[in-house]
């Protein structure tokens, strides 16, 4: 009995899955901790970071526990890399209908799964999708992309906007820093997601480790679609890399120079005060979206200067899912209104 959610395809007859979130029961794969969430918090969509989806929107951030990766630098290792069984006392029990009602109560425009890997909680998320769709609340996620083809298709049904981590461009990097043998499924899945979902891609850059792979990543993205936004994250030394050096910002900026010729929407951030977070019109260079960068999970919209999702100077279309959303377009509502 093999789990078919991620490419580890764990043999569940031998026990629980690698992520700790699935088990076998009566010949079926079963979630060990359904409807258990580690957070439900309103946050700016730019903080996820989605830069080209519903700019300015109020997202309800959710997550569960566990991950199918073991990234040495994981910023959320205290949730993602621990045994989910040990974390249940910090979880919230919220059935899908109540979770969606919570999003409405808090005036959220969409729901984004972003603390850990959504593939470890797909049955719960499928239930959330059912109620979210009834309320016309779109769903998005951050994923490492290491899912089976069938799970990827399921995610494409659940999520309309997806932020995929492409952490390096060699099996050697993925083996040493992430703990998987082969990155090919991730590349396959990025291509699949890009067919029907809004896609943004993020790559952490570790100086002298994977910075030489940046151009390969850029070329891969370009070959799918050059207008896919690419977020290059300066490594924040955490978890098992706490003693590592912070990558030098100027050198990493220079390392991206050739990639900028291939991709018009490259953002270099994950550090406070970054000046590479604005969107420029690829044709005339006019600044069409201004943002503040506050470092990890803190970015925010400053000014949206692209009415109708086009450059006001030259009319070039800017690829954006949805339109600019005012933060207070929906205020939080009372329980009577959602019950």
């Amino acid at each position: 009995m093999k789990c078919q959610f991620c490419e580890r395809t764990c043999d569940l007859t031998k026990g629980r899955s690698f992520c700790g979130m699935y088990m076998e029961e009566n010949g079926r794969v079963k979630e060990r901790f359904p409807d258990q969430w580690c957070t439900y918090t309103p946050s700016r969509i730019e903080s996820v970071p989605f830069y080209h989806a519903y700019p300015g929107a109020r997202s309800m951030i959710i997550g569960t526990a566990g991950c199918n990766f073991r990234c040495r630098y994981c910023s959320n290792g205290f949730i993602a890399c621990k045994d989910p069984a040990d974390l249940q006392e910090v979880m919230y029990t919220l059935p899908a209908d109540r979770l969606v009602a919570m999003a409405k109560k808090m005036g959220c425009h969409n729901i984004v799964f972003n603390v850990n890997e959504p593939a470890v909680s797909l049955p719960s998320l499928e239930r959330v999708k059912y109620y979210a769709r009834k309320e016309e609340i779109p769903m998005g996620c951050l994923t490492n992309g290491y899912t089976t083809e069938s799970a990827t298709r399921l995610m494409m049904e659940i999520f309309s906007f997806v932020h995929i981590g492409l952490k390096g461009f060699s099996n050697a990097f993925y083996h040493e820093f992430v703990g998987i043998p082969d990155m090919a499924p991730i590349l396959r899945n990025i291509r699949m997601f890009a067919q029907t979902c809004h896609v943004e891609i993020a790559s952490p850059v570790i100086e002298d480790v994977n910075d030489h792979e940046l151009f390969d990543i850029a070329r891969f993205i370009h070959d799918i679609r050059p207008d896919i936004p690419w977020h290059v994250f300066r490594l924040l030394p955490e978890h098992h890399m706490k003693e590592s050096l912070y990558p030098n910002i100027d050198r990493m900026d220079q390392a991206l120079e050739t990639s900028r010729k291939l991709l018009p929407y490259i953002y270099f951030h994950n550090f406070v005060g970054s000046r590479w977070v604005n969107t420029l019109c690829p044709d005339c260079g006019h600044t069409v979206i201004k943002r503040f960068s506050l470092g990890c999970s803190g970015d925010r919209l400053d000014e949206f200067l692209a009415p109708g999702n086009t450059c006001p100077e030259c009319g070039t279309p800017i690829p954006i899912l949805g339109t600019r959303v005012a933060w207070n377009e929906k205020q939080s509502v009372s329980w009577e209104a959602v019950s």
Partner: protein
Amino acid sequence: MSLAVIDAREWQNRFDLETGQPRKSDTPGVEMAAGVLSRHPYPGDVDEQANQWVTDTALDLISHYDPDLVCLSYVQQFFSDRHFKHPETERERLFAAAMAEANRFVDLSGFTPVIVGTGDMIPLAGDMDLSGLDGLAVSSNWSARYCGIHGPSPRDMDFLNSLDTLERIVPKQEWIDLFQAAQPDLEILQDPRLMPDFLAVAREGQAFKTMGTTLRKPVHIPANNFQVPVVTPLGIINDLREIKPLIREHLSTHKIALILVEGVGESFFPESRRLVQNGVDWFCYEPGDAFYLTLSTGRHQPFAYPAGFRFFDKDADAVKFPFSGYMDMILGHTLALNFPGKSIAVGNRSMFMHMAFGVDISIECFARNLFNQGCMAVVHRDDK
């Protein structure tokens, strides 16, 4: 216009503090602050060297700016005790080390100290999960005792009233009246519509689990510190609000350092300490914005950022001070705002110092949820 210098290690950028827009400035004060920042990379909130960073950075800044008033916060021991389980001996070492670091600053600087503890920490005994309410429960990362209840249903009130771990449920107006009686010119600085209909108050040792609370479950939380320790040779005080006038009274004759040591109770203070009132009746200030602002302004400030208010319904599109965390206004009446002498602040309570004390120049860490992003200097003025 105030200017922020962000230092993300080996890389700096300068911004207008209020608008967040990049701004060029090379005044001597800005250059000096930028130099201090680059010489003192922040080790991280729970790093053993984080408090030493406060002392060393402050001494460096003093050597270049020669201030008359210094405001410091030492918080490493609070973060460490809050998030990590240490043996009791290690806990005591952490708190004693924080006091020793504060004293090292006093010895090396020669400033006359006013050292204020925020009171003891105690083990988290349990938490109340209020995510199942029909209404909305809102708490925050750094609050254990208070939680806002918005729009509760009758079923919610029945549930809340059944909780043995809840000390009381206070209607909004009763909470306001409590402080109005103690501070007739009380200011409510947020939109009252965003305040909770009821304030839920946990029994000592208990905390809330709601929207807004941390993913990192605390190990220790503040005790109900209705009194907090203060030690100073400047005079006798009985209330947190009396510290500001005491300092202002002596600034013409003394160089003074106001030093906060968070999470530290009276047993770590010298015998000459006094216990001063910290709050009103059943409401005690937890370490956080209300404590800092009450200390700095000499007035009760529970409603600058009220516990449990619906912060997410503020108009985020109009928010100012993007580098100041959830603080979005500079209060009047702060300790150093109209002080004609020179003043500085240094601390490792992120993004508080430059908003709380009204000093000319501040340097603080820029860490969020323990993630170390670097440091920030704010130059409010350098014309003295």
